[in-house]
């Protein structure tokens, strides 16, 4: 029981980070970006490439930090991958989405579907289909509670790290949106784009910030997926349905909604593994999505249209 919750919170961390960016895009750029999952995949692999480059330069950099499976080099690689993925999201907007914005949101959705396919297969072409890992070190899970208490609880240090860093990132984003000028312009544009423009907010600047932050967080999510599970070129498209479910569940445009939605979808996935078996895990997100569309289509924290 406790173990299911703990596992759900770890998957949920990754979904949450991906869902925030998707939710912001849906609220500010105003379309469902089917390419968002690919930012996770590319982020994860860009970090792998950066990490391999670092450790080739100096083998000492591969030494794990304390109880974790990864080294300082991976953390540096994470930063680089996040910035590169943010830049990639920006580049995709400039070359494709920006030109189509006038044609309406559905054209953007089709274009994003095409971009997703191209990006995913480029990744497959570049890195091959075999799953990869950041580190070959095996981690022993620490028993936090014995089996007698609610089935026991074991977590790895890596999982604790992922969970903690997720909460820190979300808090940082929250502070940014609440207090910085750019963050406040983003919220204003999300609520009422025309009024925001009248108030002197540059919409293009807000859009650029949205893409960059979305890419940044997606890359972090991708790296976390690589640390706790593995890297696969298809991880982006596999995450897409959970991401959408989390966004709809939390209400489009709500950061905390996306986080809560991510954790709920993560818990549903991890519960489904023990109820119906691991092979139907991906359908758990669909199940959550159907429920929310049937009973509360605006999401838990969404505003009415």
């Amino acid at each position, binding site marked *: 029981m406790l173990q299911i919750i703990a596992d759900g919170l770890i998957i949920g961390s990754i979904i949450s980070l991906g869902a925030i960016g998707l939710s912001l895009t*849906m609220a500010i750029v105003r*379309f*469902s970006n*089917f390419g968002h999952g690919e930012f996770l995949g590319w982020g994860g692999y860009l970090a792998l490439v950066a990490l391999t480059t670092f450790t080739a330069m100096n083998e000492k950099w591969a030494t794990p930090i304390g109880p974790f499976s990864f080294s300082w080099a991976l953390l540096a690689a994470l930063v680089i991958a996040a910035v590169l993925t943010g830049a990639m999201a920006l580049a995709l907007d400039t070359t*494709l989405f920006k*030109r*189509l914005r006038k*044609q309406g*949101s*559905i*054209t953007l*959705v*089709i*274009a994003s*579907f*095409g*971009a*997703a*396919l*191209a990006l*995913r*297969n*480029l990744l*497959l*072409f570049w890195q*091959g*289909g075999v799953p990869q890992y950041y580190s070959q070190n095996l981690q022993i899970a620490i028993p936090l509670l014995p089996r007698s208490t609610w089935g026991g609880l074991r977590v790895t240090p890596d999982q604790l790290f992922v969970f903690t860093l997720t909460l820190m990132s979300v808090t940082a984003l929250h502070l940014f949106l609440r207090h910085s000028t750019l963050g406040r312009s983003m919220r204003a544009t999300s609520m009422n784009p025309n009024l925001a423009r009248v108030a002197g907010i540059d919409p293009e600047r807000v859009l650029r910030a949205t893409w960059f932050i979305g890419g940044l967080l997606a890359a972090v999510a991708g790296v976390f997926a690589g640390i706790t599970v593995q890297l696969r070129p298809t991880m982006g*498209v596999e995450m*897409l*349905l959970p991401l*959408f*479910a989390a966004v*709809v569940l939390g209400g489009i445009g709500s950061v905390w909604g996306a986080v809560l939605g991510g954790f709920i979808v993560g818990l549903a996935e991890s519960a489904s593994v023990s109820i119906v078996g691991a*092979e*139907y895990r*991906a*359908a758990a*997100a*669909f199940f959550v*999505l*159907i429920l929310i*569309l*049937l009973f509360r*289509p605006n999401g838990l924290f969404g505003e009415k*249209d």
Partner: protein
Amino acid sequence: MPDFVGWLSYGSFFLVFATAFAIIALGLNLQWGFTGLFNVGVAGFVAVGAYTSALLTTPEVAGRMGGWGWPVAVGWIAAMLTSGFAALLVGAIALRLRHDYLAITTFGIAVTIQLIANNATKLTGGPFGVQFIPKPMQAWLGTGLPWTIAYLVLALSILALSYLALERLVKSPWGRVLRAIREDEHAATSLGKRAFAYRMQSFVIGSMLMGLGGAVYAHFVGYVAPEDFLPILTFQIWAMLIVGGSGNNRGAIIGAYVVWCFWAAAGSLLRDWIPQAEQARAAALQVVLIGTLIAVMLVVRPRGISGEKVSISN
């Protein structure tokens, strides 16, 4: 002479696939081109049709459901019914909500259908799929070129029938209401047209055509497996519709043949140019090419080869 037979046989083989895709593209054109419904789960509805017909018409297999050996025609009708029913369920949930939600829900149903195809071994045969799907008319014509050509004629007549039926439908008052709802839902509603009901009808009929196209494909190949219905299929159909021009049934058909030709040509060029060891990776490039084609088409020529005829003055 043997060369000619080889070409003819490859050509008719190629055309049967393109024709099955054209039937599916017509279904998508009704949904997207005329009604503005964004279906990202085309592959799912095609799979439902293909599997339904396969399960009903195949001989019995131990450890799997179905296998009743029914006539192929019954299988094809059943394929349309089950795909239509799947669309009814999805539509009931998503058609009342904002546009994007239909896209997300159809994406979800395609993922779920893919999971079921892969894992519900007792129903679908699991990763190995369904084999020994009967090929109609093969008892008379054997397995060679005559059969391929006969099947091509059969597929083409189904395509022609679908085309004529759809042309009648979209030119009828019913079709005008669809376009009215697509352009301005509030205006159509204020004239007493129930947008939800019309959308649902269009969505279900379109999905039925997708199921039929799937069945036509399944009975030509003789087996179906989950990997035949990956998201790439959805995307190919979308590429066909966008390249051909959505909102125009002839455009959808032309697009199907053009894009399938482009796809096959890109595939064979990559096979020739790229060394044997790298073939698996090269297959990924084929998808990148078609992804880029659709993006370029959207930017450069959003109305496609032959777009919708404007039926009112601007």
